[in-house]
């Protein structure tokens, strides 16, 4: 597998898709920072600016940008094979479709890990700027939930992009996910969000807003976390079966 991952890095050399990903990551950080500063500086804010608010805000902003980020990532690392008809070359040189899929899952997850680290650092930095003290395990739990949601959403997008030649489909799903998150601020009921893998960041949040101004711990968090994990495991299993079934064709 090390060889396959090394090959993924080599084949993506000089590709420009990394720039939109950097742009989206920067926009996420900027949007989060601006929204925190706006509320912090506002004299009429009805929110208590504390750890809960920061983490909920972080998840909301991520809910908007990550569907786009992940759809671009999944599409770009898949279309390099479609566009250049590389399936044939790879499969006659010891790389099955399943091995290729797994290499892309790991390669994409490494980029997602960098994105996740950036979110952790930005959250800490913004928290420091607005004088928020982190306490208990909520920060860690939120970040783990964000990480899980990112990986599962990526798997969902990768299944679309890896098995469907028309890359527009995955990208449109990502755009729709971002649009829904933007319009609803991730405040859709959990039972609706469970049907939208592209908006799992909102579902994974351990915090939720009630009565328009009160931020509380989501009582369904553990169930949602396990639900997202199960969907991720099912998507992984489904992708493995599909890749094996398609073989080298």
């Amino acid at each position, binding site marked *: 597998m090390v*060889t*396959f991952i*090394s*090959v993924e890095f*080599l*084949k*993506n*050399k*000089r*590709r420009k898709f990394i720039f939109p990903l950097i742009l989206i990551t920067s926009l996420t950080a900027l949007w989060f920072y601006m929204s925190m500063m706006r509320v912090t500086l506002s004299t009429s804010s009805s929110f208590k600016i504390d750890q809960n608010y920061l983490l909920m805000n972080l998840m909301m902003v991520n809910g908007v940008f990550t569907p786009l980020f992940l759809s671009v990532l999944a599409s770009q690392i898949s279309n*390099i094979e479609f566009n*250049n*008809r*590389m399936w*044939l*070359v*790879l*499969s*006659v*040189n*010891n*790389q*099955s479709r399943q091995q290729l899929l797994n290499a892309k899952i790991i390669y994409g997850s490494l980029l997602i890990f960098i994105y996740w680290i950036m979110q952790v650092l930005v959250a800490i930095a913004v928290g420091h700027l607005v004088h928020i003290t982190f306490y208990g395990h909520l920060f860690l739990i939120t970040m783990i939930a964000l990480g899980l949601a990112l990986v599962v959403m990526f798997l969902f997008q990768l299944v679309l992009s890896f098995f469907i030649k028309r890359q527009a489909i995955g990208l449109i799903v990502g755009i729709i996910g971002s649009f829904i998150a933007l319009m609803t601020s991730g405040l859709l009921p959990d039972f609706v969000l469970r049907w939208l893998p592209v908006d799992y960041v909102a579902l994974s949040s351990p915090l939720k807003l009630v009565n328009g101004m009160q931020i509380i711990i989501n009582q369904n968090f553990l169930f949602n976390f396990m639900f997202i994990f199960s969907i991720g495991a099912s998507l992984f299993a489904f992708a493995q079966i599909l890749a094996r079934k398609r*073989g*080298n*064709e």
Partner: protein
Amino acid sequence: MVNKMIEVVNLTKKFDQKIVLNDISFTVEEGDIYGFLGRNGSGKSTTMKAILKLLNFDSGTINVLDNNDIRNSNAYLNQIGSLIEEPAFYPNLTGYENLKIVQQLSDIPTENIDRVLEIVGLTATANKLTKKYSLGMKQRLGIAIALVKFPKILILDEPTNGLDPEGVREIRELILSLPEKYGITVFISSHILSEIEKMVNKVAILDHGKIKFEGNMQKLEQESTLSIATDNMPATESLLTAKKYNFIKTEKNIIVNDASSEVAIAVNKLLVGSDIGVSDLHLVKHSLEDIFLKITKEA
């Protein structure tokens, strides 16, 4: 003993209900440059893809490297290099980097890259991005990717497609050198029959999913016709009919099919012995193109 490098037995492949390959059989032996000919859509690429396990087939057997049934393992792919349809590579990488990918996947020595670049004449442009390569350079890179493993079998599907005459000649000379210099058996398809004629020692002609001819070039070249002109054409016709020769009559002469030197001598003796004046009698050796057209038109 000559090894069977590829043995296809009763191979059948259907797409939906359309039969693309209909019970085809042929054998490629060690050291062969084996030409696989057919019109577009005749099933050439499908056969090649079946050998490479790029598609499943409905029935039949494909044995590679002396009776290794390809259904049992993928290990044989390490001994096969291929260029199917058109060269495929990553345009954002250099020629060297593209070969590096195959080298890493196939776990072969790094030195093979420089060696193969030299063979295909791309050493000077190895560090140029492949998206800037000319068509000929792309084709050569495609062959380099197929060759970098220094496989026992090389499968080339239309390797001279889109090349200028000089490029075609270069690729031809390269392919011709492979069996002797590197011990590589070549299985090649092309629609440029004049080119194939200069390269191959054996040939199979595929038409509508069926093998219409398989054999060596000498056998194919024996498929000449005999052109006859005499002073008594009706009597000539009667004699040839009586002796059950397969012939057709044209405006000026009679054409005997499937002729050879022996047939020419026998016909000449027959005519002269019957007191018919022979004004012209000569063997017409057909090019591969003529024979190909004849075989495929008969269908």
